[in-house]
């Protein structure tokens, strides 16, 4: 059956279903109009000025400071999410307790809640007069608060907002993998004399590792581009408290399009790196869960 002569293999694959040209054509036109043409415009704008000038814009002090904050805060947030997200996923999959389904549903909140609302709420909670901000203020005292450890209107605030944004990415990538882990393997490990800790590190963790890293990468990638929730809780001071998207935004407002485009391409290249990394990690994940099933 499967060994049909190759000349019968037509574009679209072997199927009798209609609508291939219509739907693919429509998809291609739509993606071209909305993604490819605008992206080409962005890149052409960058090449409309000399490369040396673009390089200067991309490596200006203000830009470098913004990369440090965007990537630094995103990395810290991704690590926090890596640890707490793993715990949340583990508890939601493994343990049964009242309210579990509610917690499971609310994990998606950062996906569904508009970023402006999240930013506003977090800024109110973590400011000096907010519920949490007040606790931190009293714990650390006014000196530390002034010295940059304030939980709102500061770079710590940026990290808080980015942690909020990234949490569901880690939880939702690990959850299905944990769910599909077969109990047999753990029982076998226990029968062979492994204690629970050894079973976790040698049997469970290696199986979840690719998904865990995927989730962390996704959270990190999303956080670097995040704008809405951050601007409410960041200090937004030039050269100190600006994330890269904010620098792009203020260049746009001053009609300095070439500069905005140059920084935009930096973020765009980063998005592609994240996409490629995630694809590689997912291929690894498929290999790992493939061998685990045998």
């Amino acid at each position, binding site marked *: 059956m499967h060994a049909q002569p190759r000349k019968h293999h037509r574009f679209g694959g072997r199927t009798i279903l209609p609508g291939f040209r219509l739907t693919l054509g429509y998809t291609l036109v739509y993606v071209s109009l909305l993604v490819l043409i605008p992206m080409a415009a962005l890149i052409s704008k960058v090449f409309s000025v000399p490369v040396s000038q673009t390089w200067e814009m991309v490596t200006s002090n203000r830009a470098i400071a913004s990369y440090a904050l965007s990537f630094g805060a995103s990395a810290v947030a991704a690590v926090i999410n890596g640890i707490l997200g793993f715990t949340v996923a583990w*508890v939601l999959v493994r343990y049964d307790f009242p309210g579990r389904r509610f917690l499971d549903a*609310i994990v998606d909140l950062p996906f569904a809640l508009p970023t402006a609302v999240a930013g506003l709420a977090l800024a109110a909670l973590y400011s000096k007069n907010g519920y949490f901000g007040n606790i931190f203020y009293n714990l650390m005292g006014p000196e530390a608060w002034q010295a940059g450890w304030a939980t709102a209107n500061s770079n710590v605030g940026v990290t808080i907002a980015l942690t909020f944004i990234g949490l569901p990415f880690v939880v939702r990538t690990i959850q299905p993998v944990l769910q*599909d882990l077969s109990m047999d393997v753990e029982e076998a490990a226990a029968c062979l004399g492994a204690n629970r800790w050894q079973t976790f590190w040698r049997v469970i963790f290696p199986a979840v590792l690719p998904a865990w890293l995927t989730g962390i990468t996704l959270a990190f990638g999303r956080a670097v581009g995040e704008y809405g929730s951050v601007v409410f809780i960041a200090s937004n001071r030039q050269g100190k408290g600006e994330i890269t998207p904010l620098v792009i935004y203020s260049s746009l407002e001053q009609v300095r399009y070439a500069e905005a485009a140059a920084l935009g391409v930096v973020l765009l290249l980063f998005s592609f790196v994240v996409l490629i990394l995630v694809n590689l990690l997912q291929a690894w994940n498929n290999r790992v869960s493939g061998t685990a099933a045998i």
Partner: protein
Amino acid sequence: MANAVLPSVSAAPRRRSPLKATTEPAWIRGLLITVTVAFIFCFLVFPLFIVFQESLSRGVQVYWTSLRDPDTAHAVRLTLTVAAIVVPLNTIFGLAAAWAVSKFEFPGKRILVTFIDLPLWVSPVVAGLMFVILFGRNGVLHDFFWNGTRQTIPVLFATPGLVLATLFVTFPFVARILIPLMQSQGSTEEEAAIILGARGWQVFVYVTLPKIRWGLFYGIILCNARAMGEFGAVSAVSGHIAGKTNTIPLQIETLYLNGSMDAAFALSTVLSMLALLTLIVKSVVEWLAALQAKNAIDDGTG
């Protein structure tokens, strides 16, 4: 046959109640559950609670007055208009893309799917920036849309720009939910319908649509929530004119920067309720899908 409907449930190994050897000591379990509950409450539930608490802190009267402010009312209308254009367009796109990707094989499919995913990973400000560069002053299409310093066809700082930016940011959602769903369902039923003489649109309406209706519904709700809540991309193209080009999220920012915290929180409750609705729909759809799969398996064995 029955397994083809929704294989995810049958593929997962049946969960037994854990033995002592395959679970943690009670104190570790208790600790982990406490950490999880505390973290989710502080980090997710509390911010949501604070929005409602702050908005009602000055009483219901203030709440309703701030929502009836003319600029705020205009922002609500503008947001509804943008969503009414964006959501149907992206739903049609999602259906077309999911049909093309899940029913056929063609070279470059992975690249196409990657490009459909791309808006999820592009910074919203960069998304808005692309359209500013296309349509803005000094932009690539300057000659078509500008006459000196005036726009001949208003795209930027007007509804079309808001629509374009929102289209970009929200177009993956319906497609992303439908593609894995339709791939897992397979095409055997559609092929049977064609062999029995159905036309293309009949196959879609009578065979495919009933199979994917819950996924489609969730995709539309999610797309709508993101369309109404988008901030970064529309911020770049809007120009922030209160009463003219401010959508709800932009109006929230304007109110916040003007120090009208009560009004900002009052308007936030509207979007928060939309977010809650989205979460509820998602839970219900997942429950229905599990139920459907369970019934299918029962039918198959019975």
